[in-house]
């Protein structure tokens, strides 16, 4: 049992690099340069670790089903996907926030305000809490287009520097929730591989930077 590799689901792209550097800093013996252009799986026999590279939105799914023992996922994804996983550590990397945005000086349409987003669960939860009835329109990318061409009054999306909004002539209206990357674990792996996972949490905790 203890000989099976620890499978870590990582989101492709920027979060991967930041999280990977954190693991190296935490003392894991990982190759400095990792070739991840097209690969979906990387074996690290020295540490008995296996990385699988997934779309950020899919990381909690792999972890919930137990095909990955642990994973690194943004809080936005966790809130949207609502998977049953252990949320163990805030890595405090890839920080941004979810916000609503739209064209400057506009009000929500009174009859049926429309919100375009790739986070339908987060958006509908947010407006329900506010007591506002809205219609959610699901999009998969280039969300900023929606208010520009009149598909929606507002968008709900992640904002890091605000540059993308600015370039498209949009302004931020309401702050929804803070986002950073979290270390998550499958519930069975958390029990069956508890020593290894706790060790990882402790070592990563020392590398978490405040602020």
């Amino acid at each position: 049992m203890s000989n099976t590799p620890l499978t870590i689901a990582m989101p492709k792209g920027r979060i991967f690099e930041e999280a990977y550097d954190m693991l190296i800093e935490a003392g894991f013996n990982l190759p400095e340069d990792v070739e991840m252009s097209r690969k979906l799986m990387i074996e690290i026999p020295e540490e008995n670790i296996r990385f699988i590279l997934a779309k950020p939105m899919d990381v909690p799914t792999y972890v919930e089903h137990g095909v990955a023992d642990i994973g690194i996922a943004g809080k936005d994804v966790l809130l949207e996907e609502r998977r049953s996983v252990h949320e163990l550590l805030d890595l405090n990397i890839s920080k941004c926030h979810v916000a609503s945005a739209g064209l400057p000086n506009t009000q929500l349409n009174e009859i049926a305000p429309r919100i375009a987003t790739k986070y339908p669960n987060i958006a509908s939860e947010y407006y329900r809490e506010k007591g506002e009835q809205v219609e959610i329109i699901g999009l998969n990318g280039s969300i900023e287009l929606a208010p520009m061409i009149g598909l929606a009054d507002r968008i709900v999306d992640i904002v890091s520097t605000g540059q993308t909004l600015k370039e498209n002539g949009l302004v931020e209206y309401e702050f929804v929730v803070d986002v950073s990357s979290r270390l998550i674990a499958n519930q069975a792996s958390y029990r069956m591989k508890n020593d290894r996972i706790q060790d990882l949490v402790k070592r990563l905790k020392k590398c978490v930077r405040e602020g």
Partner: protein
Amino acid sequence: MSSIRKFEKPLGMRDTFPKIFEKQENIRRTGREFLQLRGYDFLKTPTLEYYDTVGRASAIVESSLFKLVDTQGNTLVMRPDMTTPIARVASSKLLKEKIPLRLAYFANVFRSQELEGGRPAEFDQMGIEIIGDESVYADAEVVLTAIDLLKELGVEDFKLTIGNAGILDAILRKNVRTEEQFQQLHQLLVQKNIVGFEEAVAQFRLPREEEETLLNFISEATELKSIRQISKYLSEKQALLYMEQLASVLEIADVAKYIDFDFTLASHMNYYTGMLFEVFASGSGFSLGNGGRYDGLLKDFGKDVGAIGFGLRMDYLLEVMPKREEVKEDVLVLFVSTQLKEALEKAAALRKEGKPTTLQAIEGLDDLAKFEQQFSAVVRIGQGGNVQ
């Protein structure tokens, strides 16, 4: 919505094909013999119950209940668990005959799903309940029965994580100011969200001492060396003594290697009042089952006695069972119509030897060779190998 195709089933419903059926039957047989030898009596309860009785008392969230309406207009539910119907039967009838009761069941339960596949809405559960025994030995018996049952089924690599709902409640309540804060922290632990717990504690702006106590508790309780470490978080030690007693009984029974204590363990099954546990095994990413003490549930049905039990899920159990290739020894007896008498005799003789025997008229077959391949042995009555 697109129209329903002929082969489709409602979301979460599954067919059990012959091979899986046999495996389930094996588990059921093993489990039944095992539990009978330990003095458990099996029982069955109806699939449908009133919403106002079992539906309300059950700990399954309302949105997961399958509901229907009977001809009198009463709302019915398809049973979402077995513990609640058993509490109903025990308090209305069985407890008058014997106390404590040791009951066992093997039944399908129904919980509707909103999400995608991979989670059945109907599944089989095998479990036990001890009703009317409030001693720590009932707790120990339930834990040991779960462990021995898993071993009996050939599952080797598994863990029981044991917590205590009463102790967790006491520690949380002692250190927060309002009921809402307690509910929020408890819910975060049900969701296994340690990060959220720490954030919430910081947000509450509690006095420094309380804040530190909660944060220390959450980090210490997930990695316990000894139960006694928890003592400093409690003013009332009764429940902890109980857990220490349980731990020492389990030590004597030599099962410590299967057990972890984690006092942050919280269940969405809100009827648990004392000890509770979850079962995990390598091979499945989900919890195989859970159990615990639910001293309040029987009160809902008018009997103030303690009760404890556990249930294991068949679907996840199948995932973790050792994969044995079943060698099926079945015989095909082929005959032509003129030789029916000999064929009947031959088949009867084979069946008497205990061999599963299929009797098949050649006239009824289109593709003889393909059909023959399904069997480990073929006997031809009549024209020997010259048929067709």
